[in-house]
């Protein structure tokens, strides 16, 4: 029996789901091994009977909290899919503002109509079994995770930094070009995608397991980045992880 897979999206750009549609004909190979029963972005079938729930997006309101809990109850396996689901992603940048202030900035007097809560990663609300990091997800890693799911074994996100992959690809280091890069403290697994294409790593896969955050701030400072921008740069994808680290530190 092929496992039944359902895609669900929360606050996100749906780009990670699109990565699936972007597989091309390889998608048909994937459909050979799983049954997709719910994939709202490209399908109207509305299967409510599924084994594996692939969750895209972050939890940003109470309605979403209830919805994700229901999904968790039904699914045997929950996969957090993409940065928004795994770490809050770009959405969590808003947690660095006072909620009423940013709400008022965007919605003015209508802000009061909104049900909104600070952005949460999926695992802050329900248990997550697998993570596919990245903004967007790296297709090969998604397939790797899928294989682990099919084999019924856990998937381990490499406990390495993007630098290790960047070096293996023998890119010229961004720091040598006078730029600052999030590679040293970002989880590997994307094959240093951005640096291979000439840009810096923005840290979309989130901090490595035990990031040397203070050292990283020092290093970025040494390379001439304005302190205010350093904090912004680091929290672009790491706000939720940072909150988690702080909590762990307090315990």
């Amino acid at each position, binding site marked *: 029996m092929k496992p039944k897979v359902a895609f669900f999206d929360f606050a996100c750009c749906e780009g990670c789901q699109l990565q699936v549609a972007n597989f091309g004909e390889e998608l048909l190979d994937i459909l050979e091994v799983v049954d997709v029963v719910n994939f709202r972005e490209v399908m109207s079938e509305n299967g409510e009977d599924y084994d594996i729930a692939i969750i895209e997006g972050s939890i940003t309101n109470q309605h979403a909290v209830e919805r994700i809990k229901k999904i968790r109850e039904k699914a045997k396996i929950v996969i957090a899919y993409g940065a928004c689901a795994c770490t809050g992603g770009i959405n969590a940048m808003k947690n660095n503002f006072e909620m009423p202030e940013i709400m008022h900035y965007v919605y003015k007097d209508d802000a009061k109509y909104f049900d909104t809560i600070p952005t949460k990663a999926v695992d802050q609300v329900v248990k997550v079994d697998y993570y596919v990091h990245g903004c967007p997800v790296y297709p090969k890693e998604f397939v790797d995770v899928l*294989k*682990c799911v099919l*084999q*019924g*074994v*856990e*998937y*381990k996100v490499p406990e390495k930094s993007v630098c290790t992959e960047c070096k293996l690809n023998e890119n010229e280091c961004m720091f040598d070009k006078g730029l600052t890069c999030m590679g040293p403290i970002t989880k590997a697994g994307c094959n240093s995608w951005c640096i291979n294409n000439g840009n810096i790593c923005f840290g979309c896969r989130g901090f490595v397991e035990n990031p040397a955050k203070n050292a990283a701030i020092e290093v970025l400072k040494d390379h001439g980045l304005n302190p205010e921008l350093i904090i912004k740069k680091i929290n672009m994808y790491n706000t939720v992880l940072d909150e988690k680290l702080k909590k762990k530190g307090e315990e």
Partner: protein
Amino acid sequence: MNKKTIKHSSYTLKPAHIIETKYLTDDIKYFKLRFTDGTDLDYTPGQFVMVSMCGVGEVPISISSTPTRKGFFELVIRKAGKVTSDIHSLKTGDKIGIRGPMGRKIPLSTIEGKDLIFVAGGLGIVPLRSFIDFVLDNRRDFGKVEILLGCKTPEEILFKDEIKDWEETLNVEFNCTVDKADPKWKGNVGLITSLIPSIFVYPERTYAIVCGPPIMYKFVIKALLEKGIKEDHIILSLERHMKCGVGKCGHCQIGNYYCCQDGPVFFYHEIKNNWEAL
């Protein structure tokens, strides 16, 4: 890149059949294996094998049986992660790939005729069982045999039947302590080190063989030394992360040593000054 195939390398797997399995606890499973070509694994107590689940990975596992019993070898595996949980899904009749035996063959002649104390913490009993059974199969070649076992809870005590056997028929002193007792438990409660002071030893003719979680060693060694047991009479089996098993990949390095090749069994005096050992 060109590719060629060859018959043999350090990574070649040798197929083995599973001839028996049973759960010892919820997450610890016992496996009895035999090579499909009928050969015996040529090993010494303290050695280990690499167990392969193709497609998932390979893990180091201690051999729990004694080489004195032919035609099979035994493994006891705790579900710890990716590979080990996949191994748990195996049933009698399944085939797996084995590499090994790995590790140093310690000369058993050194302990022949001596009194032995086995100190095991939790799963540490698994590799020690290989020594214990070896000794018991040659019971007359050894002196006094004492087994000290420490576990978190009474349920975690492995090989309960065998222990009874050891105690009743083979003249072995067995002492056990748990961190947390349950109402049925009548034995000791406390750390394993608490068992050591009360045992009686002839220091010069006693060897201690120790295996357990990393934090245990320091305290056990201290207690043993206080008993007067000599540094070169203390034998330790150490665990490290291992990938290749052939002294290359670097994961298992303990200072100067590669645990997979130079160990995992060491004499205390060899590693007491090694900054990374204990």
